[in-house]
C-alpha cells in the first residue's frame, strides 16, 4: 500500500493531493470535533491513534492481520473463480439462467449468520468455513455482473467469433473479455464486501484474525482499540482498492479507449 502511495506521489503531487486532500480534511475535522469528547463510545481521535500504535504496530499485525488477509485473499479468489465461472454459464445460456435463477435468488438472501450453523456441521470449525462464508458473500456481485456482462456482449462480436469458427476456448475468452468491464464492476463490489464479510466470519469460531480482534475489543469495551480496528480496516480497504485499480487500469485500458475516455493529449 505504501508502494502505491509512493507511486502516486511520483506520478504527480497533484493527483496525490486530490486523492489525499479530502481524507486529510476529514481526519483533521474528526480530530478537532472529537478532541474534547467525554462519551466513552466516541473517544477523541488522539486516543484512537494512540491505541492504533499500541495495538496494530506490534506482533498483533502478524498474528491477526496476516491470517485475515490470507483468508480474505483465498475467499476472494474463490469468489472470483466461482462467480466468473457460474456467471458465465448463467449469462451465456438462457436455459442455465432460467433453471438456476430462482435457486440463486434463494441463496442470495441467506445472511452469513444463518449459514454458519450449517457450515459448522458440514465443514467444521476450521478456516474452511470462514473461506466459504467470505466467498459466499463476495460471489454474488461477481456472478450477477458477469452474467449480465456476458448477456450484453455485442451481437456483431459474437457473430464475428462464430463466422471465423474460433475455437471454443478462444470464444469463451473473447466473450469474457468483452464482458470484462462489467466483471470488474462486480469484482470491485466484491472486494469491499469480502472485507466486511471477513470480519463477520471471524465473529464466530475464531481464535485469531482482524475481525476476531476487533469484535473482541468491542465486547470488552476497549472502544479506542475498536475504533483503531475500524481505522485499520479502512486503510486496508483503501490499499486493496488502489491495488485493484492498478490492475484494472491495465486490463481495461482498451475499454477506456473504446469509450473515448483515454484522453488523447
Amino acid at each position, binding site marked *: 500500500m505504501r508502494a502505491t502511495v509512493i507511486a502516486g506521489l511520483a506520478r504527480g503531487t497533484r493527483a496525490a493531493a*486530490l486523492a489525499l486532500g479530502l481524507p486529510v480534511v476529514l481526519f483533521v475535522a474528526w480530530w478537532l470535533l472529537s478532541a474534547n469528547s467525554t462519551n466513552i463510545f466516541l473517544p477523541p481521535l488522539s486516543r484512537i491513534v494512540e491505541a492504533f500504535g499500541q495495538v496494530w504496530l506490534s506482533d498483533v499485525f502478524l498474528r491477526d492481520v496476516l491470517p485475515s488477509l490470507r483468508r480474505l485473499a483465498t475467499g476472494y479468489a474463490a469468489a472470483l473463480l466461482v462467480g466468473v465461472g457460474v456467471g458465465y454459464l448463467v449469462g451465456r445460456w438462457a436455459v442455465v439462467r432460467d433453471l438456476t435463477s430462482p435457486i440463486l435468488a434463494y441463496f442470495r438472501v441467506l445472511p452469513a449468520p444463518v449459514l454458519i450453523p450449517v457450515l459448522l456441521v458440514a465443514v467444521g470449525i476450521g478456516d474452511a468455513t470462514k473461506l466459504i462464508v467470505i466467498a459466499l458473500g463476495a460471489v454474488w456481485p461477481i456472478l450477477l455482473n458477469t452474467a449480465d456482462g456476458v448477456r450484453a456482449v455485442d451481437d456483431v462480436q459474437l457473430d464475428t467469433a462464430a463466422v471465423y469458427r474460433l475455437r471454443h476456448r478462444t470464444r469463451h475468452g473473447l466473450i469474457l473479455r468483452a464482458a470484462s468491464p462489467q466483471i470488474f464492476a462486480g469484482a470491485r463490489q466484491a472486494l469491499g464486501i469480502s472485507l466486511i464479510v471477513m470480519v463477520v466470519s471471524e465473529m464466530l469460531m475464531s481464535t485469531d484474525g482482524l475481525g476476531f480482534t476487533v469484535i473482541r475489543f468491542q465486547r470488552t469495551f476497549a472502544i479506542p482499540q475498536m475504533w483503531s480496528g475500524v481505522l485499520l480496516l479502512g486503510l486496508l480497504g483503501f490499499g486493496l482498492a488502489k491495488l485493484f485499480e492498478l490492475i484494472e487500469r491495465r486490463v481495461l485500458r482498451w475499454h477506456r479507449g473504446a469509450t*473515448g475516455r483515454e484522453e488523447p493529449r
Partner: protein
Amino acid sequence: MTTSSRTPAPTRGLAGGGPAGRRLLGAVGLLLSAAGYEAVTRAFFSPLHVPPLSAILPQALRLLAEPRFWTATGRTLLVAAIGLLIAVLAGVVVGFAIGSVPWLLRTASSTLDFLRPVPSIVLIPVLVLVLDVTQITVLLVAVSCFWIVLFQVLYGLRDVDQVAVDTARTIRLGRWGRIVHVTWPTVLPYLGTALRLVVSVALALAITGGLVMGAAGLGELIWSSQESGESTGMYALVLLTGAVGIALDLAARLAERRLLHWHVATRRELATP
C-alpha cells in the same frame, strides 16, 4: 418495407423461452435443488442438526398459517424497503454527481475506498447511542446497499459511449439533459444488476439486524428459534425467507425487462428465431 404492425407475436414454446417456459424451468431448478438437498441431508446429516426438506416443509406450512410470521415478514420487508429506497436514491444521486464531475471523483474516491470496508456491525454499540435497533437496521441496509448502487453507477458511467456523448453535446443537451437522455439509459443495465443484488442484500441485512440486535422481524424469529433449540423451525423460517427472496428477485427481473427492453441482453432473449 412491409410493416404489418400489431401482428400477434407467435406463441413461444419451451425452447423459445417464453415467460411461462422460463418460469417452469425455474421451478424445475428449484425441484432439483430440493431433491438434492433432501438426498444430501438424509445421507450425511443427522435430522437434528440439518433437517431434511421433508421435515422442514410441514413446519413451514404451519408457519404460513401463523399471523406472527406475517407480521415479522411485514416488518422485515418494510425495513428492507425503506433502507433500499434510501440506498438507491442516495446511490444514484451521489453516483451521478461524482461520476459526471471528474475532479469530484478524483477527490472523493480515496475517501470512498476508505469508508467502503467499514463494517457497520462493529459500530452498532456506537450507533445505538443515537438510534434504536430498527433505525440501525435500516441504516445497515441502506449503507450496504448504497455502496453497491454507488459503485455500480460509477462503473456504468464508464460505459457511456463517446459518440453518444458527442452527439448529446452537439445538440447542446445540458448536463441534466445528458444525464436523462444519454448516461442514465447507459447506466440502467448496470443498475438492473445492482437492483437484483441489492434486493437480496437488503433482505439479508434486515434479517441480520434481527439476528445480532434482536430487532423484531424474521431475523429475530430465526434467532429465537435457534436460541430455543428449534432447528426445524429455524430452517422453516430460512426456507420461507428464501422464498421471499425468490419473489423479490422475480419482481426485480420483471422490472428490469420492462425498463431495458431495448438493451441487447433483453432483446436477444425476446428475439424469436
